[in-house]
């Protein structure tokens, strides 16, 4: 079974991804993570303005069979929350790197990105 691992993203070993665009980081969970969880039925996320600490849990993703905490890959202030996931959590299954994004964060320290895995390293970890 092979999973989609876009080259341009940063990954955390707990299966969250970060896309950085002009100082804004978008965060979600990987294709592997959504597949492991199976049908996602509930996503609990922080609110706009909340602060994330790299490595701390920021929310919960719940599938029919399991519940899992999600961890902030980077620190920063939440500038947007994907409200669509509240009514359509299955978007995380259908499009984990696109419509299934979770948060946008004002990146506090770009240096933290160096602590994350690149696509190749993340793929090696899954193997």
């Amino acid at each position, binding site marked *: *079974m092979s999973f989609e691992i876009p080259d341009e993203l940063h990954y955390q070993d707990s299966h969250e991804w970060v896309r950085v665009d002009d100082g804004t980081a978008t965060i979600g969970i990987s294709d592997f993570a959504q597949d492991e969880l*199976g*049908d996602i*039925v*509930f996503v609990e996320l922080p609110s706009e303005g909340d602060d994330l600490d790299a490595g701390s849990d920021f929310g*919960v993703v*719940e599938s*029919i*069979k399991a*519940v899992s905490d999600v961890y902030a890959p980077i620190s920063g202030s939440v500038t947007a929350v994907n409200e669509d996931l*509240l009514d359509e959590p299955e978007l995380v299954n259908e499009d984990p790197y696109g419509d299934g994004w979770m948060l946008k964060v004002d990146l506090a320290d770009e240096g933290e990105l160096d602590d994350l895995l690149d696509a190749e390293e993340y793929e090696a970890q899954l193997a």
Partner: protein
Amino acid sequence: MSLRKPPLYEAHAESGADFTDFGGWEMPVSFSSIRDEHAAVRDSVGLFDVSHMGELSVDGPDATELLHRLTPSDVEGLGDGRALYSCLLRDDGVILDDVIVYDHPTESEYVLVPNAGHDEEMLARLREHKLRWDLDVDLSNKTKETGMVAVQGPDAVERVDAVTADDVTELDPFEALETTIDGVTCLVARTGYTGEDGFEIMFPSEGSDAIEAAFADIQRCGLGARDTLRLEAGLLLSGQDFHSEDEPHDPFETGIGFVVDLDSGDFVGKPALERAVEDGPNEKLVGIRLDERAIARHGHPIVDDGEAIGTVTSGTMSPTLGVPIAMGYVDADFAATGTELTLSIRGRDVDATVVDTPFLDSVDAE
């Protein structure tokens, strides 16, 4: 200790199933997606490998008496080819396991089907009472050499009838007949655990490949969908909705008082159940609809004004209804339909309401 594998394990692995340990068995959780498998059973038909269920053969001149006295149900009133849902009780009335008792359609034996991982324990209980009551009964554990599949859904009758040598369309609920599928002798019973019409089919495990092949084009379903389907139907899961140590309850508290026949002679646990009838239950298992988006799980507390009044035993997002549902025990004062409850889900208070089961009939889909 290694896990027991169902005869169709290799076939499941080839289909790409994810596996889990269930009652000491390595069983498929899902083949594609729980949601898709669930929908197949509600909309058309699905096939479950349920070879992890136990099969105990109870035969001999006193077989009827042994089962009649070990269950609260009227086993004497069964006839060839009839089955009943019941349970085995402890002396204090607490349920040890729920079972189906089949009066074999052609043989003198009964087939007792307990839950996964309970076969040895139930066999020991039968043996102990056979000796205590000095009954002439032959007991054997056929779990290993017996395969079992469930074919469930609105199209199940047509699909099973298409492959059986005999007509199965006229079977009543809880009626079984012996027939063959591609030369394999099977016990085909109109029973199930999904809230849909369908059959459970028992066969010698060496016939597993033939049975699998006969139903090759039916959606495979795993334990994940089996759990969401049974929960929507308000059916109990042994070890989770009741457990002799962790969640000890009698049949009345558990909502299966219909299996208890207090007029059918003596049985183990009867004095305790007679007292329970007199006193009324302290707690009751109720259906719960969550009024907010959250998933209740086994062990989550049920509270009222900050005070614990019960515990969730099962919960999920209902795939059919699109609403989170649960079952749990509450103090009898809070068991009436429509009672508003609060569930404490990982530190968050979630509003919920007591509803009737099956949920499919009582809860409006979103």
